[in-house]
């Protein structure tokens, strides 16, 4: 009963949308969105503790809450709260007060669609939720109305809609495969498919899974379907980039994991695992190549997202309790860390008024505090200890240490080292590089709206890096074991 009450709080962003449309006053919209984010966080944060390994169904089985969904919701709620705080400061700098209500209405609506996806028990409605996230966020990507933002928005909606239509085809074929077991009409829920899985036709099931993987993989930004991601992430306002990268990608990954669970239940796991691992290695490779020779500051972060989605794909692909737990832990760490990185990048971009890293020099003198937080985040995101990402990447690697995937672990290690060097080299140049043509400037003061979310993102990263609580480990490895359980 208490869980039901908490779930009722999750549509809070819808009220924020209404308030924004009706009130239209920038300060009221800010407040409405911020309150909605706080309510969502308060409701989502206790869910993983309350659910304790059970799977619960609500409202005539339309809503499902399992440990996996609760975990993804937690990550989403964190990113939503942090980027809502950051939005206040950042959007005031843009000086678009008269269009601000549009921004907040879309932002809250975007958060709502991301939160809705993991809870949908019906596979078709999950697809709709993912499609809606694209439609809403396209207009957030296009919010700044520059030619570049338009180009990014167009590529985003085209590539992702085309990709996700493959996922729809895969979903229909899954349904078709199920009709041979369950009869011509049944409701296509995750448990129904999982139960029918072992008796479905194997080639058809494999074909459907591959279509679904490519389809949702486009949304996750796995290479080679990643082409929309760097553009959309670099051209949208910084808080939107954080939401796209830290929250949206995970929601789409959840769909892949649930289909993977069906494949494991049907005893067809090995091929999907191999394909997922191959996508993961390819994403790391693409990420590494483009990070080393990157010129734009937010594009650097975007390619780093592709890299980290590759790590998630590797974790779920390696599988086992260790691999899945590592990947899910990585999901949380990446959500925190990538928000921090985009917040820092947004602040720097506004202060220097450029997107190119060449024009950004001497950060420590201009912003001692934000620069320091951002640098710590950069060290964390490349996977250096003592931050959380070191722990999770290390766990994922350990999970792959078996003869079958040794090649993937070796390439992962090499590529992570390349990324470490390449990524931090850009930061070295921005922090201590020789000055470019820009005139020397006084320290910039950006208010607490910028600093607070960055501190709030960095602190847990440090804690998660030195201390992986035992309860969290049992929770995550429990999800891993349930992925492998074969249906009766």
């Amino acid at each position, binding site marked *: 009963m208490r869980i039901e009450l908490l779930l009722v709080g999750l549509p809070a962003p819808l009220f924020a949308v209404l308030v924004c449309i009706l009130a239209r006053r920038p300060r009221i919209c800010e407040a409405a969105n911020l309150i909605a984010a706080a309510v969502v966080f308060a409701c989502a944060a206790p869910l993983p503790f309350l659910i304790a390994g059970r799977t619960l169904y609500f409202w005539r089985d339309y809503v499902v809450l399992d440990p996996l969904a609760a975990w993804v919701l937690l990550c989403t709620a964190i990113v939503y709260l942090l980027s809502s705080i950051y939005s206040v400061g950042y959007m005031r700098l843009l000086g678009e007060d008269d269009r601000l209500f549009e921004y907040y209405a879309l932002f809250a609506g975007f958060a709502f669609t991301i939160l809705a996806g993991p809870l949908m028990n019906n596979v078709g409605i999950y697809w709709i939720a993912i499609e809606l996230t694209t439609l809403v966020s396209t207009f957030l990507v296009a919010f700044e*109305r520059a030619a570049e933002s338009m180009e990014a928005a167009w*590529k985003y909606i085209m590539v992702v809609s085309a990709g996700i*239509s493959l996922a729809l085809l895969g979903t229909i074929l899954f349904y078709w495969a199920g009709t041979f077991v369950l009869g011509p009409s049944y409701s*296509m829920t995750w448990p129904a498919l999982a139960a029918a899985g072992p008796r479905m036709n194997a080639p058809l099931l494999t074909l459907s899974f591959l279509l679904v993987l490519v389809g949702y993989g486009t949304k996750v930004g796995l290479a080679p379907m990643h082409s929309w991601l760097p553009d959309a992430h*670099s051209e949208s306002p910084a808080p939107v980039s954080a939401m796209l990268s830290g929250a949206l990608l995970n929601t789409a990954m959840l769909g892949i994991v649930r289909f993977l669970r069906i494949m494991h239940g049907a005893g067809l796991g090995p091929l999907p695992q191999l394909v997922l691992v191959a996508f993961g290695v390819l994403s790391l490779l693409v990420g590494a190549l483009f990070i080393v020779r990157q010129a734009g500051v937010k594009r650097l972060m975007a390619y780093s997202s592709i890299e980290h989605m590759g790590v998630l794909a590797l974790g779920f692909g390696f599988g086992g309790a260790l691999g899945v737990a590592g990947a899910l832990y990585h999901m949380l760490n990446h959500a925190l860390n990538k928000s921090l990185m985009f917040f820092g990048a947004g602040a720097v971009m506004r202060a220097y008024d450029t997107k190119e890293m060449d024009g950004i020099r001497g950060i420590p003198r201009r912003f001692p505090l934000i620069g320091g937080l951002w640098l710590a985040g950069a060290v964390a995101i490349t996977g250096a200890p003592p931050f959380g990402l070191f722990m999770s990447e290390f766990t994922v690697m350990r999970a792959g240490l078996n003869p079958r995937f040794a090649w993937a672990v070796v390439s992962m290690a090499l590529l992570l080292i390349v990324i470490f060097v390449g990524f931090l080299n850009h930061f070295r140049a921005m922090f201590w590089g020789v000055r470019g043509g820009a005139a020397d400037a006084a320290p910039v003061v950006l208010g607490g709206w910028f600093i607070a979310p960055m501190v709030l993102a960095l602190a847990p990263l440090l804690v998660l890096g030195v201390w992986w609580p035992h309860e969290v480990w049992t929770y995550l490895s429990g999800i891993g074991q349930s992925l492998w359980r074969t249906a009766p």
Partner: protein
Amino acid sequence: MLLERLDPLASSVFSTLAIASLLLSFVMLGSRWLKNYLFAFSAESIVIAVLSATVGYYGGYPELYAIAALTLLFRGVLLPYLLWRVVRRLDVDREAHLALQPSSCLVIGALLVMFALAVSFHVVGGLRLQMTVAVLALTVMLSMKLIGFLMLTVRFEAISQVLGLLVLENGIFLGSQILVPGMPMLIELVILFDLLVVVVCFGVLVRYLAAHAGTTSSLELRRLVG
């Protein structure tokens, strides 16, 4: 199962309709005028609506009549009308640059259909449905998918790309009518509605694109690279 006990007349009606809609997507491939695309798309949707109704009649799924009516209204009339308004406002009436001549597109399209047929035979073989209309339904579904992707690749005008996407969706819809006629109506309704929202979003975005980027051809969208 509907597919196993289908009478021959129904089977040939389904086949005719499926092939007609496949041919209409070839019409889109072989032309460079946006207006032709719109007409072909509209005709294709109407054929699919008729197919829904016949499947409903022969399979005993009364709810498919409602789906057929909505398909006719949404896909056959409303979506083409919305897109036609955009075309009129934009003052673009054909593809200015062609990556591939329409004739080459037709040949590639034919190859894609053969590929789809090979895949369908392989999949359907395992289900012991080789001699049914399932092979054809799956082939048409996959070929329209591939043709849609081909259109997305070789056409640059914004409206042609949107239509490419809609052909992808039409293929899925057509296949699902024959293969899984018992799919819950809720899903089909939501997908139809979703399509309407998609097209409205595209319409708004095309206008933005014309106003702020100064072009509606993806050939000229090349600021963001690397």
